[in-house]
């Protein structure tokens, strides 16, 4: 079959799964500086799905696309180490403060610039927001079909794709026409390990912003090896309308944030002795909690 052109949507996220006690400031706001950033786990599964197709269909190309601050270049390099052919980041202060609607508009504009694709894969949701909205919203903006919660691509032909989906209480197998956008569920296979040879090759891959601070030898290296360039697009590059991006393009606003405070409880502290446990069980039976 013909090689495919695949775009993978990725996001760099704060690692909300491993929040330390210093993750929140005393005033109840999130202390982003104290939280490490990672490649969003569902997006890694999406990248694996793309690389798996590339393994099966020779000539297939995988482009990873992200929107984020300059630091997001980290996951662009990770993508190249793992097997992506190209990495593109959309980065511009003016994109900041975007909700899912403005984000999907921005991503769709970048995809329109990439233009040629058969398949878009992305994680089901990002662990910092857990909204799962950007995938379907991007598909709608591109007027293409969506298949959400994929755990496996069972079959691909030149214009059709068969996808196994994970639903709340079961499995569904659907056939969709390409081009389409697929969001990948976290229970899909995990991503492979980085390839040592590729790590060597792309170690010095840098974005435009990163290169502004690069030393001379790195500048020279980039002239010699153009593949080290991580594409970086701003508002003008993707021809985005200013009222549709960032805060201005976001209908939803955060009115207030409350730190989740545990209600102080008067608790009884017990040892693991049989006597202590028996007393507790007796109390629970007396209160008709159990029994």
């Amino acid at each position, binding site marked *: 079959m013909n090689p495919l052109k695949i775009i993978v949507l990725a996001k760099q996220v704060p690692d909300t799964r491993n929040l330390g006690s210093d993750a929140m400031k005393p005033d109840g706001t999130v202390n982003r500086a104290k939280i490490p950033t990672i490649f969003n786990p569902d997006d890694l599964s999406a990248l694996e799905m793309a690389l798996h197709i590339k393994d099966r269909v020779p000539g297939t190309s995988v482009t990873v696309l992200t929107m984020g601050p300059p630091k997001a270049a980290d996951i662009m390099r990770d993508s190249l180490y793992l097997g992506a052919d190209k990495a593109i980041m959309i980065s511009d202060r003016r994109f900041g403060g975007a909700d899912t609607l403005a984000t999907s508009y921005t991503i769709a504009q970048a995809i329109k610039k990439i233009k040629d694709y058969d398949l878009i894969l992305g994680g089901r949701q990002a662990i910092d927001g857990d909204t799962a909205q950007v995938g379907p919203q991007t598909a709608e903006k591109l007027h293409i079909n969506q298949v959400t919660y994929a755990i496996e691509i069972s079959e691909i032909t030149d214009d059709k794709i068969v996808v196994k989906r994970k639903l709340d209480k079961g499995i569904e197998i*659907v056939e969709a026409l390409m081009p389409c956008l697929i969001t990948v569920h976290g229970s899909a296979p995990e991503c492979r390990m980085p390839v040592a040879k590729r790590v060597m090759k792309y170690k010095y891959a840098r974005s435009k912003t990163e290169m502004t601070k690069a030393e001379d030898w790195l500048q020279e290296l980039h002239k010699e090896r153009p593949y080290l360039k991580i594409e970086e697009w701003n508002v003008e590059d993707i021809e985005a309308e200013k009222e549709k991006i960032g805060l201005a393009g976001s209908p939803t606003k955060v009115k207030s944030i409350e730190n989740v405070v545990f209600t102080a409880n008067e608790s009884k502290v017990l040892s693991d002795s049989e006597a202590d446990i028996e007393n507790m069980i007796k109390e629970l039976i007396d209160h008709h909690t159990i029994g």
Partner: protein
Amino acid sequence: MKNVLVYCEAENQKVAEISQELLSAGKKLAEKLGVQLEAMVFSNKLDNIQTQISPYGVDKIYIADDKRLEPYTTLPHAELAIHIIKQQEPQIVLFGATATGRDLAPRIASALGCGLTADTTILDIGDHYVAKEKKEYKNLLYAIRPAFGGSIMANIINWDRFPQMATVREGVMKNEIFDSENKSQIEKIDVSKLLNDSHFVVKILERKIEKSNVNLKDAPIIVAGGYGVGSKENFKQLFDLAEVLGGEVGGSRAAVDAGFIEHERQIGQTGVTVRPKLYIAAGISGAVQHTAGMQNAAMIIAINTDKNAPINQIADYIITGDLNEVIPKMIKTYKKNTK
């Protein structure tokens, strides 16, 4: 009249429980706003479907009845919902935060260019002053949701683009009949006029929906295990304890991720929200991601080797020790005292 509109999921001629929860919550919002509550339902063989919807105090039901609408696929349902929303201009539209609702709602929000808040757990009506415009906006939807792994609750509002939309988590809103005698006005949607072949390009080849025998939401007693349980084998003790107490077994995300227990038993922000009368947390440290889904339990017992585990802050009984010793002792002393 800018009403409150609820998207109802229906399969096998049965309205989903989440949709009934939404109707109950939607009724409260409609009453606060002094507007009507409306529902839309798209499925197959819906002749008597209103009997499951009207009792929630629904004033009007939009019904699209066509065999191609069940099981759910994105494009036809989105097209019908967009048509109704454009025509009726509701001020609030609610969806379940289910596989279906979270697939559908963002597609609709994007087409309408309106705001959508995911996975809300509290809905309310309130005002907001926009300093920049020097204007007070009255009677907005407060869509309140856990964010950042559950460590914060964010109140999300939207004052300039309508409708205000939200998906709402299952099991959080109470399922309450408003008036069992209530009658709704019915409007049938002409499906063939609105949909054509281009809406049916995704074909469902196979579908296996398991009748789940796990019912965490209604269990009065839950024995839940975390990563600290250590293995799938060790979880057996939790099942033993749940069995003698007449409860159900749940797990934290870490335990599910580690493969100790199946996904459908996951309790927490990404999982089921529960409020049993007794919650036994074994080997669970108590990350907010987990406690967000169980902190409303009437009584909590925490079993942990770490005496400083965060879960202890909300526990009524704190047992510091190895769960492999504590749980058998609980089973033994329970049996002894209930004979």
